């Protein structure tokens, strides 16, 4: 265990500075801005609205769709070609899976609720920021929800379990690193997103999940604050 001090001086369980705002895109039914460190996500919700093509409609309940997209200049290296990639398709899918458990669309048969995510700048943890932003935007849009979803990337860098990895930690080269994006449903503490890549023991993984309880709680408090700020203004 040689990763004793984090590159940016944070404590192991400390998140980067965060900022959240609800209602930033006036055209949308609901929207949010969510920043964690240098990762920024905008989320906009449109719907419930009629779903096309028709064969995709579900007569029993409304459909939730997510579209995750990094702006072409938001990557850490060269410009990213615009248009979907396999990566963005997969992230869009796991976003739906992570949000669906709290969203109740039974009152909107044949309709669709679209969640669009755009990231102007990134520094790791983008899918978590996207989910946290989407959850605020869905609530802002007044979509029936049982709970909020809050997400943080956990990780294990050279034996140390840490919260909210940044790019430099993901790219750590002197030892094994694992990246574990986790989304948690606030009241039930159930996990609706779990991915992991890298190298980790089961023991450390369980520690990381334990730490995610506290980390996602901090995100939750900020999400609620953003929503309260918006609706107390109105």
């Amino acid at each position: 265990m040689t990763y004793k001090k984090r590159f940016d001086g944070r404590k192991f369980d400390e998140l980067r500075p965060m900022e959240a705002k609800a209602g930033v895109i006036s055209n949308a039914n609901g929207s949010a801005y969510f920043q964690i460190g240098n990762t920024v996500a905008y989320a906009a919700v449109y719907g419930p609205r009629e779903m096309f093509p028709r064969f995709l409609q579900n007569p029993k309940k409304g459909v939730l769709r997510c579209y995750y997209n990094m702006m072409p200049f938001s990557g850490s290296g060269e410009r990213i070609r615009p248009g979907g990639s396999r990566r963005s398709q997969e992230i869009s899918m796991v976003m739906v899976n992570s949000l669906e458990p709290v969203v109740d669309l039974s009152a909107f048969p044949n309709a669709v609720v679209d969640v669009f995510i755009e990231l102007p700048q990134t520094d790791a943890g983008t899918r978590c920021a996207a989910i946290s932003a989407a959850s605020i935007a869905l609530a802002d849009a007044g979509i029936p929800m049982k709970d909020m979803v809050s997400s943080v990337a956990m990780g294990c860098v050279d034996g140390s379990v840490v919260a909210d990895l940044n790019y430099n930690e993901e790219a750590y080269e002197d030892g094994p690193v694992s990246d574990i994006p986790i989304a948690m449903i606030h009241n039930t503490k159930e996990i609706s997103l779990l991915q992991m890549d890298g190298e980790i023991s089961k023991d450390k993984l369980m520690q990381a999940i334990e730490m995610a309880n506290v980390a996602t709680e901090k995100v939750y408090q900020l999400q609620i604050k953003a929503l309260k700020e918006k609706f107390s203004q109105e």
Partner: protein
Amino acid sequence: MKVNSETIALLAAQNKRLDQRALTDYRQPIKIETNISWTAEGSAKVQIGETIVICGVKLSLDKPYNDTPDEGGITVNAELTPLSSPNYEPGPPGIKAVELARVVDRGIREAKALDLKKLCVKPGEKAWFVIIDIITLNDAGNLFDAAGLAVLAALKSARFPVVNAVTGAIDYKKKTDVALPLVKEALPVTVYNIKGHLMIDPTVAEEEAYDSRLTVASDADGTISAMQKGGVGVLSTDDISRMIDLSITKAKFLRQQLNLFFK
């Protein structure tokens, strides 16, 4: 929307608008913010009324084109994101996005706003290429002017990244303090013609009511660098003359806003 269009035309005939503005006034606020993306070499977010546009500039080193071996290059791309309006869908850019990108591109390219020769590192071998991406956050009308302003602000804020002297590779994590060779400040302003009445900075409803529009890109001394007539309506030479005058005046106003910001 038909009724709305008729109302808008009727009001325009009396020099009035639904939001009480004069026909030749921009919406407020006009907000400019730069360096909104640390991963881009230059970036800006511009808000005109409720319209919000982001522009990001990336730089890369590449082989110059064969016909211009001593010049770098510029590319402009625009994405009308489905996040920014219920009318846009995911997928490749449609004609509206293509037109926006090309009109903004011509405005700066033909003004020779960027000195492309100064972007050349080694003739025939290596030159800087400037890739400009326009991304809409909220389309509440007048994307042309908002995008033009965002692009100019992003170009002004851009700094070259550090290049490794040995390998020649770009270190995108580190920026120098060298700005782009921006020698002119061309800005597009779009004038809308609704039944013979000229209007600028339309809302989405007003954009649906117009007969024709003329985008004119002009620089500080009033030289015109690009034009685009849009819409199915027709223009008289007198219309064109009035539209150009108005757009040059308004470009000066926008340039003032920009220079106040960069002071």
